[in-house]
């Protein structure tokens, strides 16, 4: 049941990428991007749970949290409300696009990291792949909205920069923990940005 639904959502996400020249109003673009973002947010916890089940203690311990753990290549989604509220339309979209680009790259890296230690866990690998595609779809939707709003669409800055390929197994596990954690936060931020735009540009 979940698989056809996920496939349908993925097609919805990728549709704007496939039809970039379609002329739609900003409101339609925003509305089109909002529902997939909502679905994406609801499923982020599934990826995190599956990932933690494969890693062991301390990552899989109940109640484990390490807010201090951060990746310099993946900015946190937290932002002060005042700052967020002062952003204009273009900034709302641009400040989400960069982290999502980083997310897609880290999700890809996670897939590579887990392919070796988890050959017997196809579920985790599939979920990571789906998450990456959703993030890419959201990126495409953001770009389409910007174009519809008549905003400049410069190439998104590649924030992650250097990726530490030679990390130890523990570092990889921890990195995956941070990525899946941020993957749970950024869709929420993106959905709120889209909700704001949706209210501003009603259909």
């Amino acid at each position, binding site marked *: 049941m979940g698989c056809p639904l996920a496939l349908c959502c993925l097609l919805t996400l990728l549709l704007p990428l496939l039809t970039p020249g379609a002329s739609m109003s900003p409101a339609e673009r925003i509305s089109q991007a909002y529902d997939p973002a909502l679905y994406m947010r609801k499923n982020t916890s599934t990826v995190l749970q599956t990932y933690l089940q494969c890693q062991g203690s*301390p990552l899989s311990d109940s109640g484990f949290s390490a807010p201090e*753990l951060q990746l310099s290549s993946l900015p946190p989604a937290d932002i002060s409300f005042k700052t967020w509220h002062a952003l204009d339309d273009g900034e709302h979209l641009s400040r989400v696009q960069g982290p999502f680009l980083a997310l897609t790259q880290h999700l890809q890296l996670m897939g590579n990291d887990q392919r070796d230690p*988890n050959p017997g866990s196809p579920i985790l690998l599939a979920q990571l792949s789906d998450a990456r595609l959703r993030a890419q779809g959201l990126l495409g939707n953001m770009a389409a909205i910007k174009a519809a709003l008549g905003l400049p669409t410069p190439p998104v800055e590649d924030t992650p920069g250097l990726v530490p390929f030679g990390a130890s*197994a*523990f570092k990889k596990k921890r990195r995956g923990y941070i990525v899946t954690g941020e993957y749970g936060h950024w869709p929420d931020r993106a959905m709120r940005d889209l909700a704001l735009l949706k209210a501003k540009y009603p259909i």
Partner: protein
Amino acid sequence: MLFQIQISRMKTSNVIWVGNYSTVVKRDPVLHWSWKSELPLECATHFVRMRSRVDDAKIPEPRFWSNWSSWKEADAQKSLGRDPLFLFPKDKLVEEGSNVTICYMSRNQQDNISCYLEGQQIHGEQLDSNVSAFKLNKVSFIRKTGTNIFCKVDQKDVIKGIVLFVSKVLEEPKDFSCETQDFKTLTCTWDPGTDTSLPKRSSQSYTLFESFSGKKILCEHKNSCNWQVDSDSQEMYNFTLVAENALGNRSVSVLFSLTHRVHPKTPYNLFLKNVSGTKATVTWKVHPIGNYSTLLCQLDLLGEGNVIQQHNVSIKENGEYLLSELEPDTEYMARVRCADANHFWKWSGSISQKFITAEAAPSEALDVWRNVKSVSGRPTVTLFWKPLSKLHANGKILSYNVTVENLDRLSGLEVHSVPATANGTELTLDQDSYQIHVTALNSAGPSPASVIVVSGDPGNEEVEEERVNGTEDGFSVSWKPQSGKAIGYVVEWCDHPQDLPCDLQWKNLSSNTTSTVISSGAFRPGVRYNFRIYEISTERMAYLLEKKAGYLKELAPSDNPQVVVSNLTSHSFTLSWKDYSTDSQPGFIQGYYVYLRSKAEKECHPGFKKATLPDKSACCQHRIDNPEQKTFVMENLQPESVYEFLVTPYTSAGSGPLDAFTKVTTPDEYSHILIRIILPMIVCVLLIMITCYLKSQWMKEKCYPDIPDPYKSNVLSLIKSKENPHLTIMNVSDCVPDAIEVIHKPEGSKIQFLGASKSLTETEFTKPAYLYLLPAEKNYSGPGPCICFENLTYNEAAADSGSCGHFPVTPEALPGQPGPLTSPENLLKALEKNYMNSLGETAAGEASLNYVSQLASQMSGDKDSLPANPPEPVLCSEYKMQMAIPLGLASPPPAENSGLSSTTPLDQSEHYR
């Protein structure tokens, strides 16, 4: 050269290891030697030094050590970064069960550091102010993603960790063996055991090494390897199988002769030929092994999964075997496998083929039994037979043939074909004897005939029934031989005697048997089973020998009989339950219990004893031991009392339910007397009343007619007796009326008088009318006077207007009339006078003026209507006279002394009575 090496940790004086290393030293040599430290080198500075000595036997003793080299320092800490905490070794791979030492190094001595293994805190040994080591003994495999060990600095957000990859232990290959199927390839197989693969590290690999040839191959599979046999020259092989992974290796060897390891290939082309009912030929082929090898093949014949026959056949290439003693129409499986006949090593794989033998004629006669009954006066024989078992049917039964032969008369045979689905048939015969042959047919032919002889005469059916006891095993039935010429016996019964059909069963027994146990899965407790034992004569006729009846287990009756109360008196009543059948009960009825209870009587009657019912209430019980006694008289009862009774049968298992008592109230003592007297009286009165009602007309005519018969009048007899015995009464037929005038008009309607046009109003006719019969002629000279009927509607005017001269009474007619005629005496006298005049003294001319009328009785309900018939003499009639008086004569006052002085005018509606 021999080198002695010393290794120190932390400081040079702390020597932790000393060892020798011997090697051949050549010119400009660069020697390599390695040492593996338990403690990760990153956690502590290590120092090494060495010295050497000649280690050559050619060089004589004494041999001296060189001086120690200077200490060389190995300090990995210098290459570390500036992180506050380090944990080593990273991503170490160890075998399950081994010991591992890990260490952490902190930059800040003040930090309080705690370490955990899979969530459990571990405590180590502090090697230095900022270095601690933890020794993990016998680490176990937890998951393929590794065992996590991490340390964190308290009060700081610093977590460092390592992953320890624990591999499963590499096992020695098991069941290692090699064999050949064709002397060209040796196939070696083994059980690899546990997979030791880990992330980024593949599972163990296997290498096969043969010592005689010195060849070595890397096996492609984890559990098998193929070795090519180069030539026939090598007979013996010594294989070593080496299993190897990143942590070590295990090996196993086997030595064998090639000819002793022949495992033939699976035979092929297995066929069945010439399959008959009892025989079949099996053929197969094998792959040849060398030029001179002989194979031993095992041929199994399986039926229903079990091996029935087993045969060994030695062949080169083609095998063939004739299977016999097979059962017709039976499915078998032929299975063949082969092995080297000279040096048995292993059976080849098996090849099998199913086949079904041909059908044969049924081998056994049917087990036939019969039931003879009379339908419409003609004997009807129902034949039953049991289907042949698969063993005896030898094929699919297509039909049954029933041949009927009359033994008493020469007649043709009757042949009936019965479908295979039937297990019997019905024949209508006559009183002759018949021999019946029953055979079963399949495609190969008929079965032997089963013969039975039946006769229209049912024989002696009056055999006394005996009882038989049932046990868990069934009914043990025995009988006494009668004729001594029996060829067998048959016991017959019904599995379901309460159903229709009752599922007739029978059991054939030999002639020397006089008892048997009848068992059936259908037998149920509480059901009466009837067994009939027949003797089979030499003529194959069955004669009833004995009857038995019994229960597998008797049960208590479930129902009580329907009891009828009769002969109810004040002191007794009769109970009867004659419709109760004792044969269809769940046990042999041994008698009945009669229960009686009454609130009025505390003591039991004679013949009764006290009993307690299940509801703890007390009552009186009487036991009837005769099951055929189905009436009982309750006596010595109290009048006008309520009694409750219950009749319940009992068997050896108990009595029926004690729940539904019936109430009876005895009447009082006099009620029967009342019934005997009053009831007949009421009936008689009713009969009389009915008779009176039906004969009311007759009674009326006899007792109180509307017009009395003067001949029967008492007046006449009185007159006759007193004065003139010759006095007679005028006959009505003697009077010839010439007209009838009706002057009565009831309820306001007008009446037209005959011969007069004047009408009278209703008010004028409120009095009774009179009907006059007038003479036709004034000169009428008939023998007597006319009759005048009293009519309360009489009117003088009408009388005047009519031609009929109403007979005025002449003065002579009433001489000496002393007074009015209102009194009976006067009336009597007047009547006497009138009668005298009319009958004897009145002249013919004068007679037309006198009429004598019979007065209708006042009892009559209809004075207005004329009688349909002439008046007839009635004995009890009252006779009256009335006279019509002309108006002119009537008008004078009554004071006038005239013959009419006693008359009252009719318009005053007066008349004489």
